[in-house]
Every structure is written in structure tokens, then in C-alpha cells.
């Protein structure tokens, strides 16, 4: 009975497995060991590989460690200093984020008297649902969780849920600054979401489909950034706004409203809410790469086999994020009303133009 189920599963996994010639000998060896073989098969099963390994959770974790370190290092470099170093000098302090994370993990998580206790604790965890769900729809070549022609629309829809949780977090905190921060988050939400969605729609028009495969395929010659530079620009700026990055770090604005919605979080819970923005940035950058930078189009090394596409996508994503990290040391924070004004006047206008370009180009292509 169990053997049958295992055999069925094995078949399912093997039928849709990642083909990586480089590690094929190891895989073959492991396949001979019972029980381990099913695990290996599971890992190499494409939907699982996409969601959990690459570009999914495992890489996300690695990425988090990397981006926190890289951002701090890059900022430090621009600021005439060295950044995290002594924690692991040979690797230039790369595990600084790990140390911080561990410290957070073992610190007391305070739920203060005035907070709405259940929501205060639940919401940071709930916030992961809209963050993690898009991963299932983001394909990387052959590695894909759920394949659907509406993947881009779905991703955008899930992303739109994140601010709701942040607003709820601010409400549950029951703090003046959290309150002001939540209101700012709500205002920002309406400010960036419209141009963002229009920019995405313009690209969908351009490619004629919400299917990432179509989008990537259509960019095999010219990347989307050149096809529709205005949408590219609008997407970039709204991405900064959506992930609360300077110069639009308005809902958190530590010097003004003391981290806004997250003011009362401590310990592990703060660790969770702190990485929200980074994770969101990761998802949005993946989308950005797929829409504008040709997705997983790029190099192809024979030994890597199916791993080429996820790796390529990942490298592009990391490069984009690393470049985006520089704005943190470049800009001051805009004011909320200025941002809203820019957004509702310029950004929406630009996104309309982008939409026009998308429609026209989509019609031509």
C-alpha cells in the first residue's frame, strides 16, 4: 500500500523533475537509497523546487541575509566607512544579519498592555501569506509552482494585500505613532497602487498575455525596459514606494513617527515585520525582471541544465536589488503630501502614457 503510494509519488516527481547534469551523478546515487530517494525526488520536483528552493523560500532566506548585509555594506561604502565587519572578518561580516536575527530570536517579545493581543501577534505571521503566495506563480524557466496564464495579474493582486496587513498591524499596536504610520501606509497605498497596476497592465497589453512565459519569450530580443521605458520608470518608482524605500520611506519614517506601524514590535515579531519590506521587494523585483529585463533569458551552461533559468532570474534579481539598494544612501525622505502629489499628477500621467505605448506596441507586435 505504502509502496504503491510512494511509487506513484515517485512517478509524479520523476516525471516533472529538474534536469541538472552537474549534480546528476549525486542524484543518481541518492536515488538508490530508499526514502532518501523520495526526498530528493521531491526536491527536484519542479513545482516544489520553484516554491521552496529557487526562486522560492530557501533562496529568499539566503537573499534576505545577503540583501541586509549588502545594503549595509554598500551604504557604508558610500558613506566613507566599512559597515559590518568584525563579526566575520574573513567574509567581510557577511553573517551580520544572522547575528541580528539570532539576537532578535532570543529576545523577549513584548506585547504591551494596550495592544490588541491576538491580532498583534497574529498579523506579522498572517502578513506572510500574501508575501509567499506569489512565489507559487512566479516561474523560472521550467521551474514553476502553479502554471497559469494569469500569473502576473495574480501576483499583483496578492501584492496588493500586503498593505492591508500593515495597516492592521498599526491598528493592533494601539500607539500614536503606529496610528499615524498606518494612515500614511493607507495613503501611500492608494498613491502607488494605481500607477503600479497601470504600468503592469501596459506591459500585459504589450505582451498580449498575463503569462510570464509569453512575456519572457517576447523579450528574447529586446527587453521590456526598452520597449516601454516609461512603464519601466513608473514600475521602478512605484516599487520604491511600495517597499517603503528611500526616498519614499514614509510610513515607517523612523525619525518622524518612529517606525510607524512597527513601533511596538520587539524580539522575533519585529524580526518578522522588519523583513516584510525586503520580501516584498524581492517579489516585486522578480516581477520587474520578468516584465522588463527579460526574465530568465540569458546564459545557458550545459551542465546546469534546468537550473540555468532560475539562476539567471535570481542573478538578475539580485543585481537589480543591489542597484536599488543604493538609493538608500542617496536620498532623503519625501514628505507624504509631496509623494501623493507626485503620484497623483506625474506618475498616473506617466502610467497612462505607458499604457498607451503598451496598447500600441501590443497591437503592432
Amino acid at each position, binding site marked *: 500500500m505504502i509502496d504503491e503510494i510512494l511509487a506513484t509519488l515517485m512517478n509524479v516527481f520523476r516525471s516533472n523533475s529538474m534536469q541538472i547534469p552537474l549534480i546528476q551523478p549525486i542524484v543518481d546515487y541518492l536515488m538508490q537509497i530508499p526514502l532518501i530517494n523520495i526526498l530528493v525526488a521531491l526536491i527536484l520536483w519542479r513545482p516544489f523546487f520553484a516554491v521552496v528552493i529557487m526562486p522560492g523560500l530557501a533562496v529568499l532566506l539566503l537573499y534576505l541575509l545577503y540583501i541586509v548585509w549588502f545594503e549595509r555594506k554598500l*551604504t557604508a561604502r*558610500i*558613506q*566613507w*566607512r566599512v559597515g559590518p565587519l568584525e563579526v566575520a572578518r574573513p567574509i567581510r561580516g557577511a553573517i551580520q544579519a544572522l547575528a541580528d536575527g539570532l539576537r532578535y530570536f532570543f529576545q523577549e517579545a513584548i506585547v504591551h498592555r494596550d495592544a490588541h493581543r491576538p491580532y498583534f501577534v497574529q498579523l506579522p505571521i498572517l502578513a506572510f501569506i500574501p508575501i509567499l503566495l506569489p512565489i507559487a506563480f512566479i516561474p523560472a524557466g521550467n521551474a514553476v509552482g502553479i502554471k497559469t496564464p494569469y500569473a502576473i495579474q495574480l501576483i499583483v493582486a496578492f501584492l496588493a494585500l500586503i498593505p492591508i496587513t500593515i495597516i492592521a498591524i498599526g491598528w493592533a499596536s494601539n500607539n*500614536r*505613532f503606529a496610528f*499615524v504610520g498606518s494612515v500614511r501606509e493607507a495613503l501611500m497605498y492608494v498613491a502607488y497602487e494605481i500607477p503600479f497596476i497601470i504600468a503592469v497592465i501596459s506591459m500585459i497589453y504589450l505582451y498580449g498575455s498575463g503569462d510570464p512565459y509569453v512575456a519572457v519569450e517576447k523579450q528574447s530580443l529586446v527587453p521590456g525596459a526598452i520597449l516601454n521605458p516609461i512603464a519601466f520608470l513608473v514600475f521602478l518608482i512605484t516599487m520604491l514606494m511600495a517597499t517603503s524605500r*528611500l*526616498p519614499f*520611506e*514614509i510610513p515607517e*519614517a*523612523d*525619525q*518622524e*513617527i*518612529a*517606525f510607524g506601524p512597527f513601533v511596538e514590535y520587539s524580539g522575533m515579531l519585529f524580526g518578522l515585520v522588519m523583513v516584510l519590506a525586503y520580501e516584498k521587494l524581492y517579489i516585486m523585483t522578480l516581477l520587474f525582471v520578468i516584465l522588463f529585463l527579460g526574465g530568465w533569458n540569458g546564459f545557458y551552461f550545459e551542465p546546469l541544465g534546468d537550473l540555468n533559468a532560475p539562476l539567471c532570474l535570481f542573478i538578475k534579481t539580485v543585481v537589480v536589488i543591489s542597484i536599488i539598494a543604493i538609493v*538608500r*544612501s*542617496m*536620498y*532623503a*525622505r*519625501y*514628505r*507624504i*503630501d*509631496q509623494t501623493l502629489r507626485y503620484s497623483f499628477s506625474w506618475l498616473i500621467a506617466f502610467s497612462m502614457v505607458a499604457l498607451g505605448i503598451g496598447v500600441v506596441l501590443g497591437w503592432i507586435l
Partner: protein
Amino acid sequence: MEEIKIEVPVEPPKELETLFLPIPKDYVEDTYRKDDFLILVGPQHPGSGHMRLIVRVKGDIIQEVIPDPGYVHRSMEKLAENRLYIQNIPLVERPAIMDSANFNLGYVRAIESAMDIEVPERAKFLRTILAELCRIGTHLYDAAILAVFIGHTTGFMYPFGIRELICEALARMTGARFTSSFIIPGGVRRDVEEKTLRWVYDATFAIEKRLKSFERIFIKNPTTIARLRDVGVLSKEEAIRFGVVGPFLRASGVEYDTRIVEPYEAYEEVTWDIVTADEGDGYARFLVRVNEVSQSLGIIRQCITSMPEGRYVSEQICDDVKGNFFDKFGNLVLPAGEYTTLTEAARGTLLFTIVSDGESNVPYRVRIVTPGWLYLRGFMESLKGERLADLQAIYGSFGYFPPEADR
């Protein structure tokens, strides 16, 4: 836009009673009745110094700000009455340690004016260099704080990097990075070697070069301009009425600088410009100080190139300070009377009043009015009608430093 009143019975939160607010209880209730919101900024707040601002907002617009100072009130005036005249020198520099030379200078000049001590030329030039170094240091400090208040961390790091050079210059000249206590009645504590002066001379150019980087990345940064321009405007009349001082007064178009109207030390012997602006907004206040930094660099260079030879301490007091310090300075007695000196500290007019009874070797009363305390009123007024987010921008544009105001 029509205002819609929501009739919800709102009670002021309990915590307002326990926080020891220096405002009456009915003010709090009134605020809540009128659908306003009280936000307490500070003293433990990433965007405030050591003070609390009680901000009353309607929506996002600030209605009124009540300062709650005194978090760094260290009883300086009382202590000064209980110390020897000379022992007060370290004390009076503590309000603003980054501006120690100017504070020191103001106090020492009050003693000198009382005792009619003629300061040698060389000492005057050395004092001027110290004062200007501290002025640059303070302006950079304020710029850094402004930067971090509007969220620009690089703008915070660069000035502090440049300040390292200033600290090094002060350390080489006086032996301390901040609180030099170097200016004493009659001159300075020690002569400064030619080598050190050359170093400082070269350092001014190094500072200038780095300031160019700072200008590109922060001063002329579009986000900086967006945040500071047209906020916290003080018109010329308002600035005069509320007694604003220093660069903040000059930013509103008043050409008042104590170094011009009542010259002291070597300021008459060097050429420099008084920097003013017309706008009176946050950016003008910032730019005035930025421009003053380059003026100060010029003053330092002129002082070093035309540094006269001679004594570093007046012969009326002693030949050499080393070893004589207690004997020559420990027993100063000022003739009876009141002596007031005005000094242009980095943040504005600094006033020292020493009242002596003519017999004691401790002052009878020392009144220290620091620039921060003088422009606090103007600062509070300029906040009215601005947005909550501008609070920090205006705070930074004033460079308000609570230890200086509270003494």
C-alpha cells in the same frame, strides 16, 4: 474644504496624566474635544533630541507646539556661583560642547572686560581660529542632524567624517577633541606650534574638498530641497519680534552678526562676508550656515597666514601658564559691577552676564543665555501650520540643541 465634525465621545488617554506634562489638564481635554490629536515627540524618539515637544495636530497640520525643555538642565547658573572664576571655564563650555571655544570665549571676554586685560595679538588670532573651527564643527553637526532628521543617512555621515578633521585639529591645538577649555583670561593656555598651524591650514583645504562631495550628495540634493524649501517660514518681522538669533535671523534677512556690530578678537583684521538670505524658510537657514562654513574656512586661513609672533598670554597675568595656573588664575577677583558680553556662537548670539560683588573670588551671579534658548520661541512659532512630517525638518533646520538651551 468643509470640516465634518464627528460627534464621538472621546476621552483623553490615561497615560497623559502620568507623563507629567507641563500643560494644564483642561488643555488636554480641550484638544480631545475638538478632534485634535496630541502627539508627544521625545525625549526618547529617533527624531528628537533631549527634549519633548507636545504637538497638537489637526489631521496632519500642526496647530500648536508646546516645548517641554529642561531634560538637560544641569543647573549651570547655580553651579557657576559656587566655583572660582577660573573653574567656571570648563563649566560654561558644557552647554554646547561642539561649540566650546565660542562659549569659552564669551565667558573669558566678560572677565577680561571687567579686569581690563589687554589680550596679546597672537592669542587673539589663536582664539579666532579656535572659535571658527568650532563654528564649522557646529554647523556640520547641525547639518548632520538635519540630514538624519529627514532620513538622509549619508548626509549624516559626511559631516561627521569632516568633523573628525576638526576634532583632530582641536586635539592637536588644545589637547582635547571637544571641550578644550583652552581660552583663559588674558590669552590661551599654551602656544600653538607652527607645525600644527600648517596642519590646520592644510586641513581647511581638505575640508573644503570633502564639503564639495557633501554639497552634491546632500546640500543640493533634490529631496533635501523639497523637504526644506518653503517650510517653517519666519518673516523678517516675525524673526525680530521673537528675538531669533544668529544664522536663523540672518536667514530671515536681518544683517545682524555680533562679530560685525561689536567686533571682538581678530574679526576686524580679517575680511569676510556676513551671509544673509531673504526667504526665511528652512532651506535658507540651512544654506546660510553652509555658506558661513566657507567664510569661516577663509577666516582660519587668513588668521594662519597673518599670525603675528608674540606672547600667547597677557603679561598682565603671567609669563607662562604651565605651573602657574593656580597661583595666577585661582584667585581672580572681579571689580564690583555687572559685565555683559555678546558673542557670536555658531548658533547665534550668546550672552554672558557676570555680576561680581568685588570681594569674592567666585561670581555672584552668572547669567548664561544661549542662542538655543533665545530662538526656541521663534522655532515654536515657525512650526504652526506646517505638517507633522515637517516637524523634524524644521527642528533640523534650526539645529536646536537642547543641552545648549537648557544649560
